[in-house]
C-alpha cells in the first residue's frame, strides 16, 4: 500500500455521535466554504485581458460590461452583478489571468 492509501483513523461527528473512521482523499482535501465577497470580482476562467472598459471611481449599473476576457477562443464580456462604484482595477489589457484571480474591487 502506498502511504496515501494507508488508513488513518479519523473521526466524523454526525447527529452528536462521534464515529471512528478514515477519510477519503477527496473528503480530506475538501476546501472549507467561504462566502463570495460581492466587493471583489474574480476571474471565473483563466485567460487574456483584452480590454478594460471602466475606470476607478466610475459608477456601474448591474449587467454593465467591465472588461473583456479572452478565453476558450471567445471574447467574454465580464459584467457587474450589482450597481457599484469601482474602487480599484487589478487587471490591464495584455494580462494573462488565472482562475480566481482578483480583477476588480468595488467600494
Amino acid at each position, binding site marked *: 500500500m502506498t502511504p496515501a492509501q494507508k488508513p488513518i483513523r479519523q473521526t466524523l461527528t*454526525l*447527529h452528536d455521535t462521534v*464515529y471512528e*473512521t478514515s477519510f477519503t482523499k477527496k*473528503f480530506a482535501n475538501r476546501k472549507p466554504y467561504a462566502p463570495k465577497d460581492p466587493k471583489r470580482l474574480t476571474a471565473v476562467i*483563466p485567460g487574456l485581458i483584452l480590454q478594460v472598459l471602466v475606470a476607478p471611481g466610475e459608477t456601474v449599473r448591474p449587467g454593465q460590461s467591465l472588461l473583456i476576457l479572452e478565453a476558450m477562443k471567445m471574447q467574454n464580456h465580464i459584467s457587474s452583478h450589482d450597481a457599484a462604484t469601482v474602487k480599484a482595477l487589478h487587471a490591464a489589457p495584455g494580462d494573462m489571468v488565472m482562475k480566481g484571480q482578483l480583477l476588480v474591487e468595488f467600494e
Partner: protein
Amino acid sequence: MKTSASALLDPPAEDVLMTMPKKMKDHAAKHAEATGTHPEAARRQKAQGKRLARERITAILDRDSFHEYDLFVEHKCSDFGMEKKQLRGDGVITGTGTILGHPVAIFAQDFTVAGGSLGLAHARKITKIMDHAIKMGIPLIGINDSGGARIQEGVNSLAGYGEIFYRNTLASGVIPQISIILGPCAGGAVYSPALTDFVFVVDKISKMFITGPEVIKTVLGEEISMEDLGGARVQAELSGNAHFYAHSEAECFEQVKRLVTYIPWNNRKKAEPVNAIPSRTEISLEAIIPAEASKPYDVRDVLKAVCDGSDFLEVQALWAANIVVGFARLDGRTVGIVANQPKVLAGVLDVDSSGKAARFIRFCDAFSIPLVTFVDLPGYLPGVDQEHAGVIRHGAKLLYAYSEATVPKITVILRKAYGGGYIAMCSRHLGADFVFAWPCAEIAVMGPEGAANIIFKGEIAAAADPEAFRKEKVREYTEKFASPYVAAANGHVDAVISPHQTRDFLLHALEISEGKSELRPARKHGVPPF
C-alpha cells in the same frame, strides 16, 4: 470477340495444379506481412512497458481461441500522402475468442500502426465486431491504445468515433461491455470506454483525458503531468472513471478474466453458475462487528464470512470507498453486493457513493444478477460542498436504481440504518423482496444521541442536571427505538436473524426468488436523475 462456353468452363488442368500451391504460398506471405509489426515501432512500444496488441489478445483469450477478421481491410484516404501509406489492419485487430470457455468479441487498437489512430476503416472494423457481439449476445472487450483521431481523414475520423459511441449505447444493457485502457485514450476517444460497463486501467500505462496537459497549458496556463491529470490512479481513485486498477498488464488481464466468469453473456441469459463452495466457517460474524455503533470495522470481512469461498470481486475499490460494490457467489450463483463501509467516512452516503452504487445496481438489474445489500450507515454526509455538488440529485440516483430494479433484492441490516439512508439502502419500501436484520440493528430516524437531543431539547435545558437528564433520555430512546423490533413489528423487517444464520437465510431467499417476475407499467424508458 466471342469465347466459347467450353473454353470458360474447362481451363487447362495443369494451370490449376500450378496455381493452388502458389496461392497458398502467396496467402501465407500476405498473412505474415499483415500480422507482422514494424521492428522499430515494436521496440518503442516495449520500451514503454507495453505489450504488442496481438500479445494482449493472446494473453486475455484462451489458448488458440482467437479468430481474426478483417485483417486485410484498407483505408480509402487519399489526402496528405495517405494514398501511399499502407497501414497493417488499419491499426486495429478484431475478432472473437473465448475466456475460460466464455465466448467474447474483442478488438485491440495497435499503437505501432500509425499510433493506433482512428480512421473510418479502423472504426468500421470495430463497429462490425460490435454488431456481431450484439447479434450473437456475447460480451465485448475493447483494448484502447490510440493517439486519437486520424487527422488526415478529417470528419470521416469523427464519423468513426460517433458510430462507435452509438453502438456502445445500443449495446448497453444488452451485452456486457468491457474497456481496457492500455495506452493513451484522449479527446473524444474517451467516450467509448465511458459508455461501457467496466473500465480497466494499468498504472503508468493508462492515460485518459478530454484535453491533455499541452492544451491545458496553452489555454489555461496550468501545468500538470499526464499522470497527475489522467493517469490510472487518478481515474481509479479520484474521478471514478475506472472500475479496476492494476499494477501490470498481466494483473489487469487476470482481473478481466475473473470478471467475465461472474457476468452473463447477455441480458437474456443468467450468469453461468459454478460449483458452490461454502464460506470460510472460521470467520465469526459476531466478532467482526463492534457493539458500539461508533466503532468502525471492514464490511468486506462480513462479505467474506457470508459468500462462497469467501470470494469477492470488488468494483471501483479505490473510489468512494465509503460504499463497497462488487460480485460474489452464493450457492454457486452470481450476486451483486452493495454494502456501506463503516471503515471509510463512517459508511455515509454522499455524491460519489450514491452514483457508484446506483450504476452498479443498474448493471446487475440489466443482467439478471440478484442484489444483496448490507446496511450499516449513519445517513448522508453533511457539508456545504456536498449540498452544492448536488447530493440531492446524486442521492436520488440510488433511490431510483433500487426502486427500478426487478431482480431479486435482499437486504441485511447489520447495525445502523438511520433516516434517509435507511430508506435508500434497498428498504422494503423501495421494493426489497426480503429484509433481514441482525439483533444489533438500530433502525430509526436518527441515532439515539441526536434524536434525544431534539425531542427533549426543552426538558434537557430546564432540567436540574441537564447532562444526567440527557443521558437518561438517550438511554430511553436507545431502548425503545434503537433496535430492529419496531421495524419488525411493522413488517418492514421480515426476520430478525442471528449473524451466523445470514448465509442460510440468503441462500434460501435466493432459491425462493429464482423465478421472480415483476411487471411494471409500459414505458419507453424512465427518466433517472442522471
